[in-house]
């Protein structure tokens, strides 16, 4: 029976808004650059979708180093949204991304609503991209980043206005886990028109250099990612799926600590339609492909014909 099932063709495709992904595995913003950097290590054409590093209206040089530090099964980062800015992104990486065979989502960040609007407007007209992921949750930029993601009113306003200027693009709201009740922000984003939710961004944390009596990161705090945070992420996905996104039929992209197919399956069973792999790519780029293959093997082994059957199948 197993042998039979293994051969059966399983349907890995999923929809994120009106975009169809060949499989549910995406990159996580900020951990896979603009794709070309990974060329030598992984065949990105096999992914479900590619998500870029956050793009801001103006170039940002990023935070002073030290920008990352390893923690127990985690990584604390305060890159500070270092990126080349909208114009250079369109000239350079976007041209390369256009050649990719898989849907591309551009992650957008900003200090003000106008910043987001400017980037979203400029990208709304580009056929090369399938949609926008708005990062309302990056905890590293003091100038407001944190507010968008934690106050449901401000969040709804932002999502609503981006929705207007990018009506033709799939809109993903990427939420921060640093809130008392993630269903409140999830609901706000959905009501304001988000086509999908990404859960979760990083947890705010700090590492102290005990000898120098300073924070290790120049930015003092950073965002915690990696296997350490996976239980928190799975919980938030499960809760949002059950209480908000499932009933509203809004897909969730689950991420936070995924390093192998078993991790991804936890998220999918908990309610994620797709998953993102972040920190694991830094140390093991082929993890992206291993996750796809492992999900496929799991479905085959369990005699399931599509990944959709698995989404939210938690008992």
């Amino acid at each position, binding site marked *: 029976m197993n042998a039979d099932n293994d051969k059966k063709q399983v349907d890995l495709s999923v929809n994120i808004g009106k975009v169809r992904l060949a499989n549910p595995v995406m990159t996580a913003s900020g951990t896979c650059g603009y794709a070309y950097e990974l060329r030598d290590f992984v065949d990105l054409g096999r992914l479900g979708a590619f998500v870029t590093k956050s793009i801001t209206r103006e170039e940002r040089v990023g935070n002073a*180093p030290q920008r990352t530090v390893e923690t127990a099964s985690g*990584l604390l980062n305060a890159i500070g949204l270092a990126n080349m800015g909208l114009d250079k992104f369109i000239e350079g990486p976007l041209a390369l991304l256009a050649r990719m065979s898989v849907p591309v989502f551009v992650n957008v960040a900003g200090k003000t609503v106008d910043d987001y609007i400017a980037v979203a407007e400029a990208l709304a007209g580009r056929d090369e991209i399938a949609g926008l992921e708005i990062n309302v949750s990056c905890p590293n930029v003091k100038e407001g980043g944190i507010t968008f993601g934690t106050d449901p009113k401000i969040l709804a306003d932002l999502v609503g206005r981006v929705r207007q200027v990018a009506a033709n693009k799939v809109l993903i709201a990427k939420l921060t886990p640093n809130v008392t009740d993630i269903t409140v922000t999830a609901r706000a984003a959905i009501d304001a028109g988000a086509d999908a939710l990404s859960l979760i961004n990083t947890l705010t944390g700090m590492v102290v250099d005990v000898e120098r009596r300073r924070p290790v990161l120049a930015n003092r705090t950073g965002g915690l990612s990696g296997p350490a945070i996976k239980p928190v992420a799975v919980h938030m996905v499960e809760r949002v799926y059950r209480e908000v996104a499932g009933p509203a039929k809004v897909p969730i992209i689950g991420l936070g600590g995924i390093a192998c197919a078993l991790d991804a399956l936890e998220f999918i069973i908990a309610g994620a339609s797709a998953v993102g792999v972040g920190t694991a790519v830094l140390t093991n780029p082929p993890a992206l492909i291993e996750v796809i293959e492992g999900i496929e093997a799991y479905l085959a082994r369990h005699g399931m014909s599509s990944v959709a059957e698995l989404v939210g199948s938690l008992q």
Partner: protein
Amino acid sequence: MNKESQKKSGRTRGQFVARVAAQLQRGEHHRALVLSFCGESAEVMACAEPGQFVQVACRDISRPRMSVPQLRRPISISGVSEDPIALGLGNGHCRDGCGREVMVRIIYRVHGPGTNWLAHQAVGEEIDIIGPLGRGFNLPKDKDTRVILIGGGVGLPPMFFSADRLKRNGCSDVLGIAGAATRGLFCCDLLNEADGIEDALVPGKYVREFGPSNTPVLLAADDGSIGFKGNVVQALDGYLKRNEQWRSAEVFACGPKPMLRAVANFCQEHSMNCQVCLESYMGCGIGVCQSCAVAMRSEGKDRESPKKYRLVCAHGPVFDAAKVDWDA
């Protein structure tokens, strides 16, 4: 066949499984690990340049999931060869019989969890390696250019590789300067000759790893426990005062940041070209995470942005010393 496949893939780097061919003690606190690469990985590694590094997964290959430490550890390549003897091995090391075999040596200080794990890998074990990474030293086109290779502490290993390649390119006027706080902290095999140094500013054959390239070397120990008493800049200064013709030399330097800053300042004052190989904390080593930024001197047009950062893993680790913002 091999050339074909290299052309086809066209890769200059990749993620490979290497096999430990040797694990040797070097000095009191350092170890040299010789890694054997076969098949496509051999082709790719054979093209490594001095200054480039590898990212070593310091964990059992069979346990990728919940393992600690997570991040790979960046280590400079200190030699690449098809000839084991050139890397300090005997001939009797384990061969895979897998076609072309290329050996890569790394020399490291046993420090925290990552290098501790490395130190426990025995001959024959498999290690997951990404490399070669980064941009290496710009080797002089002109064979007559003199080159001074300055390595402090664990910055010395890339200088061994540089010396090899300079020799292969036909450069014959190459001088090494190896610095450390004290005798036991040199990360190399000090030869017997090193104990009989009479004039510390006369280079000699003191370091086994400089042997294959026949590179004479000055030793500088802060505490005078061997060779010149003082730091590498003082040794360089002393040497140049006696050997004025070397003032036109190019300087390659690698070591702790204070040392590099001092070398860079010295070279600027004395109008010498200097390339430095920098370290920084790395998340990926392949240019996707922006962890490894170092500040560069901002030029005129960048005034509005306070700093300009470059990525050590992608734009470096070798930079023109004059462009680095040493005060950042």
